[in-house]
């Protein structure tokens, strides 16, 4: 009797364990087909030159990578991406923090204001681009008119080689505001009020309190948002496609946009795959940097 029970138990637990594979199978299958296989295939393709219809290909070693780093267009894309990411983060984060500090004040009706600033969250990068097209229109847009009121001549934002990149930067900052503000606000709400009160008793002014209390206590959040917005800006595509399509004269041709054009407009599959791996390596470096930095320099409560 007890033997039977033990046997039944073993039988059940084997079936139970086996059922585990069934539960994992769908996720694993789709993951292998749509992530693992393409990731490996991309690396393989990056060492080859492929005919536009994909029916013939030849191994050419590192030639795609060498060509990329010898191409002025690609060097330009690297630079444009660097500038784009740097400015969206350096301007975007302090601006978001400033707004979050206002939104953290104990004022009546503050939740209404919060809704206004959370709104860009609901809007996709593409729609963000679309929304700004009209305001920036040099003929009928309000922005250039407002600038002319204060005596400035507004550029033709999207089509001016000097202003296209700043335009894309402004729109991206605007789009990222919602997320950044929410995260900053959560961090600010967690700073204990007693600390500020104690500092006031010691005669500290607002600036000192900001530098000595707020900044150190929210530093993990600052780091987190720096990384997320670096990655998000780096992967920007929708807003750029709508606003400038990488132009004029490649001034907004960021790495991801260059990849898209080479893969799906010029049909240079191998060349595009090499670009994909360069993007991958850069993002990997950022992640490693984040991981190292996160454990060291940041103040945790």
């Amino acid at each position, binding site marked *: 009797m007890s033997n039977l029970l033990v046997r039944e138990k073993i039988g059940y637990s084997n079936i139970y*364990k086996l059922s*585990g*594979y069934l*539960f*994992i199978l*769908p*996720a694993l299958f*789709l*993951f292998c*087909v*749509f*992530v*693992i*296989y*393409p990731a490996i*295939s*991309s690396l393989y393709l990056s060492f080859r030159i492929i005919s536009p219809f*994909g029916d013939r290909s030849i191994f050419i070693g590192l030639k795609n990578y060498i060509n990329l780093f010898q191409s002025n267009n690609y060097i330009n894309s690297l630079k444009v991406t660097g500038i784009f990411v740097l400015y969206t983060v350096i301007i975007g984060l302090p601006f978001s923090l400033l*707004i979050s500090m*206002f*939104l953290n004040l104990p*004022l009546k009706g503050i939740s209404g*204001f*919060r809704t*206004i*600033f*959370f*709104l860009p*969250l*609901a*809007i*996709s990068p*593409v*729609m963000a681009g679309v*929304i*700004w*097209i*009209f*305001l920036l*229109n040099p*003929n*009928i*847009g*309000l922005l250039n008119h407002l600038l002319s009121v204060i005596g400035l001549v507004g550029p033709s934002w999207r089509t001016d080689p000097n202003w296209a990149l700043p335009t894309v930067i402004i729109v991206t900052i605007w789009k990222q*505001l919602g997320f950044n503000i929410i*995260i900053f*606000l*959560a961090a600010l*709400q*967690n700073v204990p009020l007693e600390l500020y009160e104690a500092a006031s008793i010691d005669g500290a002014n607002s600036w000192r309190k900001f530098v000595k209390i707020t900044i150190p206590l929210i530093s993990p959040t600052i780091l987190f948002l720096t990384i997320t917005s670096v990655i998000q800006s780096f*992967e920007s595509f*929708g807003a750029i*496609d709508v606003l400038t399509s990488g132009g004029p004269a490649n001034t907004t041709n960021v790495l991801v946009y260059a*990849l898209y054009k080479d*893969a*799906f407009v010029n049909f240079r599959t191998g060349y595009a*795959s090499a670009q*994909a*791996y360069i993007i991958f390596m850069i993002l990997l470096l950022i*992640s490693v940097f984040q991981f190292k930095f996160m454990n060291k320099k940041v103040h945790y409560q």
Partner: protein
Amino acid sequence: MKFNQEKAIKSLWAYLALCLLSITVLLPTLFMVFGSFKMQSEVVSFPPKLFPKSFFYLENFVKAWHKAPFGIYLTNSVIVGICTLLGVLIINTFAAYAFSHIKPWGSKFIFLLFMSGMIIPPQVTVVPRYMLMQRFGLIDSYAALILPFLTYPMGIFLLYQFFMTVPKEFEEAARIDGCGPFRFLVSILIPISRPTISAMSILTFVNSWNRYMWPLIVTNSTRMRTAPIGIKMFLDETEGSHLGVMMAGAVIVITPVIIVFLLGQKHFVKALAGGGVKG
């Protein structure tokens, strides 16, 4: 008394700053929404004005609706969003359950594989993924828009974390009562992890709704385009013609999103920020 007065002045300044910042942030959206109600003569008149003469001039919307099948675009986005959401929920709760409770041999390794897959950016896999779709003849189909996004490692991670907090004894007790692993997952685990699942659902749906590069590549007919692609094509086709109609088209596409956001703002914010913020 003096203290109160000082405080009142301070909050007055804060209100002023907040109003100014709000207007700046809202201006692009307002200009577009108000512009969609403007007659052509108003749109091109100089100097440009923010407000339209009348909010009952709806001609632009009628023209936009006739020019492009926004109904189809929005329906496609909804279909793709809902199918992706359902698929993501089923597939990833299953996997998370196996990783956290059943733990068959080798599951730890597979879990790590999923987690490390998160660092592979979608741009890296886009070219071979497209070639796969071509080979299977799935270009310009719902399957192409949905299938690649069903495994959601971040979702597996979130659910795994939550499922781990449910003690093993729960399942053993349920099993003694004759409840198998599938029933345990569906009737006990899933109901108690509702907050995690709803956050995951919102993220999945929003990501699907906003997706742009992939649908741009794999769709080529009007009847398969999702809303973001539809609006881009609409703007390209109407570029330079009637700006009021262009703005109306954009407003048609964006209105459902804004309504949904305003209705579910609390859940939205919670899902994105992981709790801790009061709307």
